[in-house]
């Protein structure tokens, strides 16, 4: 097992042992293998840098590299497709440690010989590795306080060179809770954050995005491919999508709206039309209305028939009739399930309920919800027609003291 830090700067000698250059960097091939192979060296001799193909290497150990011949094919180094440099592109870069749900840095790289070929097998993220590099060579021994992450488990590497981004699918990352994904993405720069979200499926990306602050969302979406951005916006809750679009420059926002499906973009535009600090500006249009003449059984069938999972399902909002949207009652899921299927909803529902007008203050609405322990609060217009609902998570965000809401500052102040 060799460490990259042991090799950098070590001599490259010819077959007889005469040194003629030192190791500046190591080139790896990032194709389809799980563990990339070492394909070459970047050698430095005085001020010149050149490339040595790995086929010319006969020995490699912590003292350096010995070549198999005297004749050296000196070519200037040039980057090629699917190749990356370990020092320049991998070392000291941030990676996502999915198991521990944190961002760490590649403090060292582990290289091993596998079936005769040298490959990159792991990344050391421990502080020990840092000390090893800081101290003069060999002073700090390798011990079991190293933390090595298997290269196969490294899901994302933040690097300028696109080829180093592991095209391995990020399914392990996608399985994390959206809040955890959001927190990880928050620790990366917005370019890198956009990369990560782009490689997730739309729904997961939308869920994660919803957990970030609107400004951060805007920066990340702004840096993404627009088609993908529009797809993600469609998957988001309309009120969150509206908040996000409100943070973007006008041309960008209208561009993205035009790329979205008409129904979705219309919903979002509706929500955008309300003032920010009002109930209208906080609500979402994602709720389920049912007419009061449905029976419990009909209502349940209707719900099943909707297909796509709806956001707020614990309360159903009962309207006067199929044509009207005048709110006459609220039906809890519990009551629906527990009632006699043939009973009409009008008899099961709660006829006395709380509601707010879309121009009412957002904070007051939130307080109301907190006081009455509501999961959702209907927002009506002057005629009593339901326009949308405020959900508990939005209310909580409004009521939290300011310091708690924001993320950790990403960098020093």
């Amino acid at each position, binding site marked *: 097992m060799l460490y990259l830090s042991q090799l950098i700067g070590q001599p490259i000698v010819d077959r007889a042992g005469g040194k003629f250059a030192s190791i500046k960097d190591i080139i790896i091939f990032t194709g389809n293998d799980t563990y990339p192979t070492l394909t070459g060296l970047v050698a430095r001799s005085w001020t010149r840098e050149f490339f040595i193909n790995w086929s010319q290497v006969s020995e490699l150990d912590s003292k350096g590299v010995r070549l198999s011949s005297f004749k050296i094919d000196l070519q200037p180094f040039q980057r090629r497709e699917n190749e990356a440099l370990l*020092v320049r592109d991998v070392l*000291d*870069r941030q990676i996502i440690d999915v198991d521990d749900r944190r961002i*760490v*840095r590649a*403090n060292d790289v582990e290289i091993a010989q596998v079936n005769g070929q040298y490959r990159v097998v792991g990344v050391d*993220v421990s*502080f020990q590795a*840092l000390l090893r*590099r*800081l101290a003069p060579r060999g002073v700090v021994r390798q011990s079991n306080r190293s933390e090595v992450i298997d290269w196969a488990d490294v899901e994302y590497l933040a690097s*300028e*060179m696109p080829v180093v981004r592991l095209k391995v699918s990020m399914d392990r990352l996608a399985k994390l809770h959206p809040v955890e994904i959001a927190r990880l993405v928050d620790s990366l*720069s*917005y*370019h890198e954050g956009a990369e990560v979200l782009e490689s997730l499926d739309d729904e997961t990306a939308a869920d994660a995005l919803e957990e970030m602050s609107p*400004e*951060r969302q*805007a*920066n990340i979406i*702004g840096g993404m491919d627009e088609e993908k951005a529009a797809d993600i916006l469609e998957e988001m809750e309309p009120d969150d999508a509206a908040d996000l*679009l*409100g943070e*973007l*420059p*006008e041309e960008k*926002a*209208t561009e993205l709206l035009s790329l979205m499906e008409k*129904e*979705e973009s*219309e*919903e*979002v*535009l*509706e*929500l*955008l*039309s309300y003032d920010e600090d009002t109930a209208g500006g906080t609500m979402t*249009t*994602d*709720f*389920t*209305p049912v*007419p009061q003449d449905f029976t419990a059984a009909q209502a349940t069938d209707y719900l099943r028939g*909707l297909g*796509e999972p*709806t956001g707020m399902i614990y309360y159903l909002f009962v309207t006067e009739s*199929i*044509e*009207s*949207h005048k709110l006459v009652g609220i039906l809890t899921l519990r009551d629906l399930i527990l009632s006699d299927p043939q009973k009409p909803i009008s008899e099961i529902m709660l006829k006395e309920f709380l509601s707010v007008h879309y121009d009412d203050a957002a904070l007051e609405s939130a307080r109301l919800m907190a006081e009455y322990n509501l999961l959702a609060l209907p927002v009506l*217009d002057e005629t009593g027609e339901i326009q949308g609902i405020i959900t508990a998570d939005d209310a909580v965000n409004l009521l939290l003291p*300011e*310091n708690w809401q924001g993320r*950790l*500052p*990403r*960098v*020093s*102040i």
Partner: protein
Amino acid sequence: MKPISAAKEVGRVLAGRGAKGLERLRRLRLPRYRFLAYLGILGPGLIAASAGNDAGGIATYSSAGAGYGYSFLWMLFLSTFSLGVIQEMCARMGAATGKGLSELIRENFGIRWTAFVMLCVLFANGTTVISEFIGIAAALELFKIPRYVSIPIVTFSVWWLVVKGSYSRVEKIFLLMTFVFLGYIVSAFLAKPDWGQVARGTLIPTFHLDGSYIALFLATVGTTITPYMQISVQSLVVERGITMRDYAMERADVYFGVITSNLVAFFIVICTAATLYTHQIKVDTAEQAAAALEPFAGVYAKALFAIGLFGASMLAASVLPLATAYSISEAFGFEKGISRSFKEAPIFMGIFTGLLVLGGLTAMIPGLPLIQVLIIVQVVNGLLLPVLLVSILRLVNDEELMGEHRNGIVFNGIAWATTVVVIALSILLVITAFHPLA
């Protein structure tokens, strides 16, 4: 199909608000930094640049004016360009990469250089924290509060405020206090300086080859172009999520900040030159420094000066230790976060608390020649500046990193010239320390 669409199926009439939504989108979207909002929330450039007018700054500028009249003005004038260029480069790096300075250094220069730079930063910031506490002590002593009483209380309060998260509330108060220094501008005019001499001092460079002059010169550089300012402007730009898209406004903010803070420095020198130099009063204590405000504030000069000094020092004393802790933790991957306990983030909290304690303790050392120490701290900053400048220059010229936003020739020229001059000054200072030249 989403439920609302199903509801539409069920006969809902769209409220016709879609058009209103589009209109609102148009109204909302003035440039990112809606100007009125900008005035309320100060820009990164302004905040970072104002760090130059802290306790050390006031002491240095006052000494320059009182000791050498208007002859430092040309240097302040030129350094405005230097500072503008340097701050802009850092803001640009922040907007283009979305990363802070210490992060970029770590990712591009290997661990040994990173360790060296961070050590320099720790040292520079540490001594600056000391100078802030000295400023606090001096300010409160002008109100007759002995430092043995004031410093422990202040140290603990700052720690508490920052850790418990209530700092942002008091920050505004401290910021307001620093507006007192605008009084220097008024005072300078009221002191009726010889404007001909002012012009001469601004346009004609002079230099003396003696140790104390060079030290003061280097101190002035160190306090005008403090290493902390570069790190801070880049971090703030990243924090605010400013990208190259909205960079034009940010560039304006950077220049505005630099010009404003250097203008204040300019007038501090004119003011002290007109009031103190003309009467041959040297600045050794805060009281003497306060006398420069008398044309403006009369008998209130002392109180006003004390308020401004207190506000500026408190601001810096609260922010510097935290910023340093973040920088270092970021560079080496330590756990960080002000809401963490000592167990969860030992190094972060250790650096933060340690710097505060160090500042407090040093400020309480009896018999400390306050103004002298303040100036020495700025000299240290000046000496360490080239380390950071070289790093910044290499980063901002890196094509792979900055792409089309890398430096142009003019900026490179100004920045390199500044670096060379500062290094030359440092060497000169060391020489004169051992071998007086004049």
